[in-house]
């Protein structure tokens, strides 16, 4: 299979105006992906599917990713004049990256038996109506998985034929896979709580006043 650089060049030649970035992946898998722009997403997807060399005719997996607001801290060496001398000084810079929602598509070719090629689309933000173009018209197998992302992450897919919740009920309002989701507090009883459950359990324990006679002594010590 062609390398991502080559695919990127060919897509940009075939789809005028397409903006594609190669996203590095530092993990051991080294699986790099293509971030495609939302405006030309469907044309790019059609090209990837129909191009005789690539023929990425099978979309195996569609995933959502929730990126919270984050600050990237860097230390940069800057030349500064200190006490009349020019010195290299470490300067900490902070870059604020606003949060956004992302959809990741894993594409394979049944014809040529190659893959995966991974494409990503990035929504503008993580607001209630974060929008992405639907790729269901290109790969039918994306239909349910885009519905799942709509349900669990709250991404609206424009052009999806049947965008409804798929796992949770229609009246449900939250998006449980978002990182800031808080589940309903329905704690009742746990015989042996531990870790996160213990923290949750402690919130529900009624505070019992200390009544072993030591309070007076403690109070007395405080006054001294």
């Amino acid at each position, binding site marked *: 299979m062609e390398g991502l650089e080559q695919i990127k060049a060919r897509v940009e030649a075939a789809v005028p105006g397409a903006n594609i970035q190669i996203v590095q992946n530092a993990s051991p898998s080294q699986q790099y992906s293509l971030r495609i722009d939302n405006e030309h997403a469907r044309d790019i997807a059609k090209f990837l599917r129909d191009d005789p060399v690539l023929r990425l005719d099978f979309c195996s997996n569609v995933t959502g990713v929730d990126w919270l607001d984050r600050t990237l801290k860097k230390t940069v060496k800057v030349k500064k004049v200190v006490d009349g001398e020019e010195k290299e000084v470490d300067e900490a810079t902070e870059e604020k990256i606003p949060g956004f929602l992302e959809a990741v598509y894993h594409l394979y070719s049944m014809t040529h038996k190659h893959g995966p090629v991974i494409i990503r689309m990035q929504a503008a933000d993580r607001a209630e109506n974060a929008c992405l173009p639907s790729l269901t018209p290109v790969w039918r197998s994306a239909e349910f998985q885009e519905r799942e992302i709509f349900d669990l992450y709250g991404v609206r897919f424009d052009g999806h034929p049947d965008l409804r919740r798929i*796992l*949770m*009920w*229609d*009246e*449900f*309002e*939250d998006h*449980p896979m978002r990182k800031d*989701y808080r*589940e*309903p507090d*329905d704690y*009742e*009883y746990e015989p042996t709580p531990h870790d*996160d*459950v213990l923290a949750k*359990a402690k919130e*529900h*324990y*009624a*505070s*019992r006043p200390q009544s072993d006679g030591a309070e007076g002594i403690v109070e007395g010590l405080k006054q001294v």
Partner: protein
Amino acid sequence: MNEGIDEGLRSQLQQQGVWVTSMQELYNWGRKNSIWPLQFGLACCAIEMIATAASRYDIARFGGEVFRPSPRQADLMIVAGTVTKKMAPQIVRLYNQMADPKYVIAMGACAISGGPFKQGYNVLKGIDRYIPVDVFIPGCPPRPEALLHAFMELQRKIDEQKLSGANKAAHLDSEQPSEFPVPAFGKHDLEPPANPNVFRPPAIERA
């Protein structure tokens, strides 16, 4: 069992081929040996339930082989598997549609408490929040022997039910409810999250 007849006389008559019994004993004997379960499964526990019904374990030995696909004809609801919050209203509705007398076996860790999914957002933390459960079986999933044990335990329970008096069986007591409110789909959770008339969790004692 037989309040009206002397046990010795009864035994003597039995040796002569005369069987004396009470209405209550006859009624319970008939019911406990013909329990028709409702035919539905929710997750992997249902596979064990199917195995229990098949030839190797053979629940027919206890009179429970007639799995009915309609709640109108079923006596026993085996809640076999994970009850998601989306499925819970349908389970309660099926229970309400069953005719009295009716019984419930909560089979497996999920059905009794939510099991491994207890801390999740989408799984009901035990079906006993909405309907009364007669027998709980732990296990993930419980083996067919465990389900048979639960079945025999239920038979024992039926055998001890009274037809009259203050402690008579719930289905004969017109004051006892036979239907329970179906929870509604709320914005964040089921509403209500549990039926307080059915579900009373133990009080938290730690401080």
